[in-house]
């Protein structure tokens, strides 16, 4: 008879405790609204949400690019922020949605890891996910709300996918598909790569486990996988129909914009630090174990292979593989998100490592692992201040907003120069429209798409391409009603002076100057074939949010078969001593 080990170090950590730890770690940082001042993208997400708060059923947003469709970006995360903003305000609503993401992440990791490893190892994996450098990097530095909120939903869907593949349970199919739709409604790119990097190893696992039970039925697994895939694909096609319409109507054909995550990290130390050392942190030390253990245990091999693919993709241009496999898409994607996917795929094996270390030297290992986890998290947070890549999202733009909103200045369009990611903050609170914007994929104006530069506000950082793009836009100022330019970087002053703009006001002790061109006529609506039809606006306003409500209803009304995932075969090679046995 087995004797149950009651040592604190040999018991799984209760999921509730892990969620509590996630709250303790992340809630204070989010309540402080850290992402609004330190991240690149938080203001962008808040801007999108602000539009939904004012025009829920009209995804055509005239505040950027002289008009663009928000159907080019899945809406669910932004719509939740919009709803919560009525109670908490936009900034805090963003923090709440982000908090939901980081709290759901360990839950998702736990459930995903349970497919591969024991409950105890899975609980360690879940706990470590709270301190992942890549999570801290994406949440507090990159501001990738959509990736970090979508990924947990996808992780939550995977056990249902496995359950459906193994046992063909209808309720698992329903829940898995709905969670997939929710994940897709938050972020399409995570879904696309998640489908390959996460679903494929789970499919292989189900197939292997089914064969291991010697009940045959490999074909049944494949058949069910096809059903799941078909239902998910149809669902995603319907729920995000306006997105597909917009992407088919205007495929991304702009000149590629350089991004540091596509660089070779060996040739630029700062990039290597930013996109490799900081996101992975102490996980780098575990890489040999991940590979060796992943290769040693047949059941873990699918996980290892797809971890390795995600890892290679996360290296951006350091290896030629992503460029070869993705073709033109390589120039559109940014690759920091793959470090998150790689880390999540590695965590089950890292959970095993922690389990073994704790079994061998409980106190030493617990101290060591804790220090490594906290140091990884601290490094990612500390890097925000030591990094050469600084954001200015926290910049005070009140004077700019106030100028635009008074005396009919909002009859004209404006741009900012040197505002970095404070641009969406201006756009969120002003009634005036701009020809610039922060979402590259939605740009249709030729002055922006033909030069290989991103935001006009950061034109100088894109060198000749950026300045050429800015010149092209300024040349067509009269066409777009572009009268006012706010400058937060004197670098742009000479061009404006030579091009016919005059400095008319100064704010914040000279930090921001306002330039105006007097012969510019008031802005007129720019006709576009990208304006979504009213019915698309209705779909966009109903289906994605409806999916999330449906997921909540399913969760509330249809309980899980709790024991279905409890039996997990050993993930320890034969010659590694087993210190704990599975509970049955």
């Amino acid at each position, binding site marked *: 008879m087995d004797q149950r080990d009651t040592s604190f170090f040999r018991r799984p950590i209760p999921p509730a405790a892990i969620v509590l730890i996630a709250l303790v770690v992340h809630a204070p940082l989010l309540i402080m609204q850290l992402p609004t001042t330190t991240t690149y993208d938080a203001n962008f997400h808040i801007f999108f949400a602000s539009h939904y708060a004012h025009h*829920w059923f009209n995804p055509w947003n005239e505040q950027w690019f002289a008009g663009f469709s928000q159907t080019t970006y899945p809406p669910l995360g932004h719509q939740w922020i919009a709803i919560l903003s009525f109670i908490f305000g936009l900034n805090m609503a963003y923090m709440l949605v982000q908090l939901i993401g980081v709290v759901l992440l360990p839950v998702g990791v736990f459930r995903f890891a349970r497919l591969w490893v024991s409950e105890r190892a899975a609980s360690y994996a879940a706990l470590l996910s709270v301190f992942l450098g890549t999570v801290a990097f994406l949440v507090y530095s990159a501001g990738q709300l959509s990736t970090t909120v979508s990924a947990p939903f996808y992780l939550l869907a995977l056990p249902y996918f496995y359950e459906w593949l193994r046992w063909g349970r209808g309720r698992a199919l329903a829940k898995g598909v709905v969670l997939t739709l929710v994940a897709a409604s938050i972020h399409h790119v995570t879904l696309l790569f998640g489908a390959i990097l996460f679903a494929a190893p789970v499919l292989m696992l189900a197939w292997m486990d089914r064969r291991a039970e010697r009940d045959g039925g490999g074909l049944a697994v494949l058949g069910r996988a096809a059903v799941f895939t078909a239902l998910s694909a149809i669902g995603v096609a319907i729920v995000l129909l306006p997105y597909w319409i917009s992407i088919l109507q205007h495929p991304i054909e702009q000149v590629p914009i350089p991004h540091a995550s596509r660089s070779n990290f060996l040739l630029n130390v700062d990039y290597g630090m930013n996109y490799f050392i900081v996101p992975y942190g102490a996980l780098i030390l575990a890489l040999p174990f991940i590979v060796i253990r992943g290769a040693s245990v047949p059941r873990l091999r699918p996980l290892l292979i797809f971890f390795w693919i995600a890892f290679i993709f996360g290296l951006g241009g350091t290896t030629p593989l992503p460029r070869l496999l993705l073709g033109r898409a390589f120039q559109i994607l940014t690759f920091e998100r793959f470090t998150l996917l790689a880390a999540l795929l590695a965590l089950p094996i890292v959970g095993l490592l922690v389990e073994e270390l704790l079994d061998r030297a409980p106190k030493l290992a617990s101290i060591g692992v804790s220090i490594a986890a906290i140091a990884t998290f601290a490094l990612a947070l500390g890097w925000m201040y030591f990094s050469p890549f600084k954001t200015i999202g926290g910049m005070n733009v009140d004077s700019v907003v106030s100028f635009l909103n008074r005396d*009919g200045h909002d009859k004209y369009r404006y741009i900012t120069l040197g505002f970095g990611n404070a641009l969406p903050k201006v756009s969120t609170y002003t009634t005036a429209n701009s020809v610039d914007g922060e979402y590259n994929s939605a740009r249709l104006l030729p002055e922006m798409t033909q030069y290989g530069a991103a935001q006009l506000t950061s034109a100088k950082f894109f060198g000749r391409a950026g300045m050429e793009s800015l010149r092209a836009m300024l040349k067509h100022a009269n066409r777009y009603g572009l009268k006012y330019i706010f400058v937060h970087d004197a670098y742009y002053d000479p061009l404006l002076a030579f091009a016919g703009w005059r400095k008319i006001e100064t704010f914040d002790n000279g930090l921001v100057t306002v330039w105006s061109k007097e012969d510019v006529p008031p802005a007129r609506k720019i006709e576009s074939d990208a304006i979504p039809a*009213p019915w698309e606006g209705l779909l966009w306003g*109903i289906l994605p*949010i409806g999916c999330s*409500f449906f997921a909540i209803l399913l969760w509330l009304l249809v309980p899980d078969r709790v024991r279905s995932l409890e039996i997990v075969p050993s993930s320890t090679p034969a010659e590694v001593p087993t210190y704990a046995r599975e509970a049955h």
Partner: protein
Amino acid sequence: MISWVAFRRLGLVLFAVLLLARLGPNTAAWAADALPSVQLNADSISPRPIEELTGKNIARDYAYAWQTLAQALDQDRSELLDGYFTGFAKETLSRAVADQKKSGIRVHYIDHGHKVSALFYSPSGDAMQLRDTAQLEVQVLDGDKMVHQEQVALNYLVLMTPAADRWVVRLLETVPGF
């Protein structure tokens, strides 16, 4: 069995649905008003002849002015007047919008077109006086109740002045006859 906690959550979800319903599309805002027809005759203008482009712009902008006037009165939104009205005309019409908001009495115009004659174009090109015979259906409503309705040809004396990129109405006065 569904617990009371689940019911509470369900309530929350329903609340959110209702909130969404409140955010529903404003079909009225989607309705597009047609631009009224304006025929401009500048044969008897003096002392300065009207330039061809100016003539086109005057007709276009006067039509837009009537369109925005009708919208402003329909939607009780005086800010719509900013685009094509200025000075005394804007003051007068803004007062009308404020008054109808307060009193609940609204005027609805159905515009059947304008025959406009240009009378005076200042030598320096900074003011133009027009005479307009407008075919209108005027409805006076108290809330939803129509208290007056008429098909009428009204005579307007109009003063337009140039703004940044358009001509705007500075004076719009109904007169008994010309």
